[in-house]
């Protein structure tokens, strides 16, 4: 029997009742993105756990940083320039996208992070459009109307205003998607001959996420191991680090992270907002002594993960 019977929804969310066709469709969506077996580097393979029986002898969390590595590399001598450019969703390329809300004076009051994929929301929209509207109202704004989200032909519009200019629900950056995550996971080592991580250099992709996933999976494959995505597949927020963040009095900030979807350690949607009682705003916080002017300054301290299972016996 295969390891996974039916791929679960991201974060095992139950946005619609059990028995909804969403769950089978989601399984089919994921299944279509994973080949039965792909040798990546050496004798092992990346396999589809819904088609393969696996004796899981190890698990692995592939971790990376939420802020765009390409931007930090482009602006090595000017971090502010990297953060400024990072406000544009199209640069938020590490499977973490965020939306910044500012007060009328321009000071940041809330940053909302998501790791949710367009594939999931499209699947949900196809089976439960009303539920999508309700979730948008809950997550973004009660003012959301159905016609804001669905085109005249009834198709869900991922680039709707509540997921772009006026808020965030899921990824829109073209290479942030379940297809890309699982695609990069099945990418074959370029030289076909690398015996170690140095042999895989120069490595062309600039994001931390791609490098992390590629390098780790190639090395696992070189051992002859079979490796697969853990279930449910998908990127998560595994941790964040707000040490050294101070309030206007110079004291450590309180715990202002609110997980809205998923759980701590495996979050899909997280809101960073200071409760009114605290008497200051996100933009009044300093990180290591530097005032917060951009959402990317927080994203730099958000840590992402994807999870894998390893069968050391089979290849």
């Amino acid at each position: 029997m295969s390891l996974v019977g039916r791929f679960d929804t991201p974060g095992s969310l139950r946005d619609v009742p059990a028995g909804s066709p969403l769950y089978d469709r989601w399984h089919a969506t994921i299944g279509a993105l994973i080949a039965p077996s792909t040798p990546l580097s050496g004798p092992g393979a990346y396999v589809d756990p819904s088609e393969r029986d696996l004796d899981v002898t190890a698990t692995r969390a592939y971790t990376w940083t939420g802020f765009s590595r390409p931007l930090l590399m482009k602006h090595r001598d000017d971090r502010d320039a990297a953060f400024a450019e990072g406000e544009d969703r199209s640069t938020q390329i590490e499977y973490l996208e965020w939306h910044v809300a500012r007060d009328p004076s321009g000071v940041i009051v809330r940053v909302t992070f998501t790791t949710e994929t367009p594939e999931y929301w499209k699947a949900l929209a196809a089976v439960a459009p009303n539920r999508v509207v309700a979730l948008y109202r809950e997550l973004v704004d009660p003012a959301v109307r159905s016609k804001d989200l669905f085109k005249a032909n009834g198709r869900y519009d991922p680039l709707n205003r509540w997921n772009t200019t006026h808020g965030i629900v899921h990824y829109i950056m073209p290479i942030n998607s379940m297809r890309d995550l699982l695609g990069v996971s099945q990418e074959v080592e370029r030289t076909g001959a690398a015996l170690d991580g140095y042999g895989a250099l120069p490595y062309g992709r600039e994001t931390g996420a791609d490098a992390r996933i590629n390098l780790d999976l190639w090395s696992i494959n070189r051992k002859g191991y079979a490796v697969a995505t853990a279930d449910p597949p998908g990127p998560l927020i595994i941790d964040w680090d707000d040490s050294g963040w101070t309030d206007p009095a110079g004291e450590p900030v309180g715990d202002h992270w609110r997980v809205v979807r998923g759980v701590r350690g495996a979050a899909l949607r997280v809101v960073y907002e200071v409760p009114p009682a605290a008497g200051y705003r996100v933009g009044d916080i300093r990180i290591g002594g530097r005032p917060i002017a951009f959402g990317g300054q927080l994203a730099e301290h958000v840590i992402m993960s994807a999870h894998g299972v390893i069968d050391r016996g089979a290849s």
Partner: protein
Amino acid sequence: MNSDAAIALAALAETQTALLSGVELPASSGDAAARLGRAAAETVGAEAVAAESGEVTGDQMPAGSGRTPQALADEPVYDADAAADIQGNIVPGFNKDHQHFLFLRFGSIDGAREWVGWLAPRITAMDEVLDFRREFRALRLRLGVREPGLSATWTAVAFSFPAIAALAGHTDARAFGEQSFRQGLAERSTYLGDPTDPDHRGHRANWVVGGPDNEADALVIVAADDPNDLDAMVDEILDHASAHGITLLFGQRGDTLPGNLQGHEHFGFKDGISQPGVRGRRATSPDDHLTPRFLDADDPHAELFAKPGQPLVWPGQFLLGELRQHHQDPTIPAAPASAFPDWARRGSYLVCRRLHQDVVGFWEMATAAAAAMGTTPVRLASMLVGRWPSGAPLMRSPDADDAALAGDEFANNHFLFDDETRPSALVDLPGYPGDTHRPATEDLLGKVCPFAAHIRKVNSRDSGTDFGAPADTFLRLMLRRGIPYGEPIAGIADPSPELETGERGLLFAAYMASIEDQFEFVTRRWANSPVQPNVGGVDPIIGQRDVRGDRRRTVDLPAADGSTTTIELQEDLVTPTGGGYFFAPPISALRGTLAAG
């Protein structure tokens, strides 16, 4: 101290390192002694420690060797002016057994400028240190003794941001793009995980130097083979300083540990084994590399390593304005940094942290954890470091310390983490039998060397990280120049209560071109993080967690049966007690802008 911990601590005195003997390392062909301009003293030089442990920077390769090392075409060539401009503690590093760190506060700015001008000719350049090393090795071979009796006293200097602003003016100071330098260590302290509780000893308000109210303007580092020479130079510098209205905020003497523990830090482990190799050479001859090359051109990694395990790094990672490391491809350079005033070219940022070490607490913790895991205290402690006390890497000797491995400089740093380590092809080394030690096997899952082990946290070598392929890790390396301070307790049987509670630790010092991308990156994102670069807990040596005052930390350690045990570390065993962020200017600037205003 509990008795098991006391036994483990005392046993460190037996730590052996079997140094390679009879190996002819590439010898000098030049007239270094003449250029050195310093006669070999009759006193016993202690530089041998450095040379023996692999610090052979500055030697030339043998002529006519059958096998040849590799250098990339773009590597910079330093002419005499450049080699006399770069401070010698940056490249190749003083690495002396006795050093004194002087943290100074300026009085009048005119006085400070005059004193800088006086100091300028006393600052030791790269050239002098390279020549000394070459001559030292040549003498050693010629005389056939370990310590040929060559000694020197060297000086380095660096300034804080406010001091640069005072000496060079605000316009020039603002040209320094490195925000962390401009802010200073105290302001970055809690970002590095330091205690937020003002009552904690490690809180910046309680530091001996470098806190909000006692930041130093200048840090002078004097290093000598002979403690008397050291004292004489320190006195001279302080006399002139005080004559120019400059006060000593804090002074800290550092010394290497005695006997078998020479070159070890206070917990008892050999330090200073793994350093990046700076690319480039002097103009004197085509093979006068700043870092001697021992890999034969046939070796698949010959373009990446100077010596097995020693990565070659473009000099701009340590010297402003030089070609930097490319973020994807280690064999091609990236453009130099640009955010600094002209006169600062070939200078380097210096991070200094005075880190108190609770040695008794460390061995008590190791003893308790060892009992819980059914292993010995020394093995457990070695898992926390990633090396045995001798310096032998766990990756190559998982079960016991290995004196011969530790002493073999071509083997003791030759290991990867994620994949099997293959033998290196070396240039001809007469007398060297080759690396015959057990090779490192892959440890992708952290079963041999825990993910949290200090050396795996701060340099994950061949592994991918949270921030890229191994090419990115080259961008994080720094030139470590620290030395222990305080009276040792490692290796002492029945220490007195005063000795047990004595003040000791590491004067951590490291040079780099970006504080934020090197020291701070490694500290915060790797050492302090339980999930970066790999899930597995924080660095048990230097990792700090301060979650709104809660400083408990955990480390995952592999057990013999393949399972993982999570150990909770209740206390900080390393506590920051001072330091600063400084800029070490090129020597020309000491004579020019900084002295003249």
